[in-house]
């Protein structure tokens, strides 16, 4: 994408981070509106200034939002296809919209609210049967963890990755959540607790799974020109990329990836374009907010994004490289999906902006470039670089 620093995230907002199902009786639309109001106030803008919406993972209804918020006119409304893989692609779309003049103030909203009695962790048992899904549904793959466990198992086989690496992801992420206001888990996790945790889907134990929460969050994106006069230090959109390779394809819903892709996060091509377009390398990234629905997928993203070589993610993590304190590349400084909260990527985007502003709870000193990723998932997957 050739629009480096032409757009910026100027506002962030969210509701409280609720335990799953506990945001009721507030409605889905109500939660999103609250997040949008917070984000526009944070930016020093009015909701009436909003003239665009950029969604991901099924989004919501633009007309409904306009009814509740009194937004007079919208000139851009679009959505990245797929699920959590495309999350930060919505920021890329918003940046493109304001850089091209399609709209002036674009909001990326997201809300996750679980109906009582159902949970996201068993989502595959709630979807309608279709011919293409028959092959995995017949195998009893019910929750996302069941699928990603097979990628983790293959990574262990192919590269000798140990559960100790997954444990270090869980422990370091937990440590970051301890000081983070609103984080769901704030008690340190020990190695003993990790290894005593019940095995859910071998090799994934309880602590390798992310949380399930009710959260709405929103980002406000506008042009670099306008950003200069607003309340916050702008987090410029340095680059964004969405899509991915055929070899990754439907990934977990397909499982036909060749060797070099199967035990990966499917983000290698995203990383390549993300860096090359703006002439940087992984060494220039100061903080990485990596979509951590499952701890092994952090290890694989570190490889895809070039922080270490393919297959060396386990050792890289075990050596302490992703720690906020003393790591070579601090990862998920907000506590991530594993310990802060899970809402399909919006929490990572919020942390990315806070790191660039210099206001993060676990602030990486002088952070100039933040990497934020969408989920390792069926295509499209996505990556985003924010910068000062």
């Amino acid at each position: 994408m050739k629009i480096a620093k032409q757009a910026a995230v100027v506002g962030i907002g969210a509701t409280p981070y609720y335990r799953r199902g506990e945001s009721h009786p507030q409605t889905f639309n109500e939660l999103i509106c609250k997040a949008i109001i917070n984000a526009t106030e944070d930016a020093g803008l009015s909701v009436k200034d909003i003239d665009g919406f950029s969604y991901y993972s099924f989004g919501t209804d633009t007309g409904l939002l306009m009814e509740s918020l009194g937004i007079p006119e919208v000139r851009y409304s679009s959505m990245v296809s797929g699920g959590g893989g495309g999350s930060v692609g919505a920021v890329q779309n918003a940046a493109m919209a304001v850089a091209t003049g399609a709209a002036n103030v674009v909001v990326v909203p997201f809300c996750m609210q679980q109906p009582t009695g159902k949970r996201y962790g068993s989502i595959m048992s709630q979807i309608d049967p279709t011919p293409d899904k028959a092959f995995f549904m017949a195998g009893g793959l019910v929750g996302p963890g069941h699928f990603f466990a097979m990628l983790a198992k293959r990574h262990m086989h192919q590269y000798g990755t140990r559960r100790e690496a997954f444990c270090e992801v869980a422990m370091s992420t937990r440590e970051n959540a301890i000081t983070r206001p609103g984080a769901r888990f704030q008690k340190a996790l020990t190695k003993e607790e990790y290894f005593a945790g019940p095995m859910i889907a071998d090799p994934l134990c309880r602590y390798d799974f992310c949380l399930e929460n009710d959260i709405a969050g929103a980002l406000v994106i506008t042009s670099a020109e306008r950003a200069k006069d607003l309340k916050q230090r702008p987090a410029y959109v340095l680059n964004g990329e969405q899509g991915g390779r055929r070899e990754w394809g439907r990934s977990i819903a397909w499982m036909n990836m060749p060797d070099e892709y199967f035990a990966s996060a499917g983000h290698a091509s995203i990383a390549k374009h993300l860096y090359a377009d703006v002439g940087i390398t992984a060494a220039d990234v100061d903080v990485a907010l990596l979509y951590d629905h499952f701890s092994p997928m952090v290890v694989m993203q570190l490889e895809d994004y070039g922080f270490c070589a393919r297959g060396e993610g386990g050792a890289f993590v075990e050596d302490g490289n992703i720690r906020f304190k003393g790591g070579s590349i601090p990862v998920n400084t907000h506590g991530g999906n594993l310990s802060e909260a899970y809402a399909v990527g919006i929490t990572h985007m919020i942390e990315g902006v806070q790191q660039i502003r210099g206001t993060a709870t676990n602030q990486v000193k002088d952070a100039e470039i933040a990497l934020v990723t969408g989920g390792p998932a069926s295509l499209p997957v996505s990556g985003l670089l924010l910068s000062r």
Partner: protein
Amino acid sequence: MSTEVFAKAPPDELFQLEVDTWTQPYWDAAKNHQLKLPKCGDCQQYCELGASHCRHCLSQNISWVEHSGSGKVYSFTIIRFPVIPSLQDSVPYVPAVIELDGVDGLKLISNVVDAPLSEIDVGSAVSLRWHDREDGVSLPRFTLAK
């Protein structure tokens, strides 16, 4: 006394078969306990299961060739926790990705059943074991090869 735990299988009610033009031949063959794979009648390469075109040459001349079902475990997981109540009597079961002998570019998602958990590993040789459901659908599953 051995206390070896064996792999069970996911419950039938988890899944209802839906077919379309391009998956019908696979499931029809399964009813006759034949594992048939889509191969391009023009360029002779394996196609994606359920695809309407050969991704190599875009031909729609897809033929269905029988395979013995012998292969290897490419990866697997052991589901030990019943995330929904209907799994209660089915755990532990073993979803697996199966690499079939001599087949390049087409792996199957299935289950390894009726085998000691401790003996299932990446690379384990497997053979076909058909599962006939009450609704007339037959599923190819795998067990450790003798």
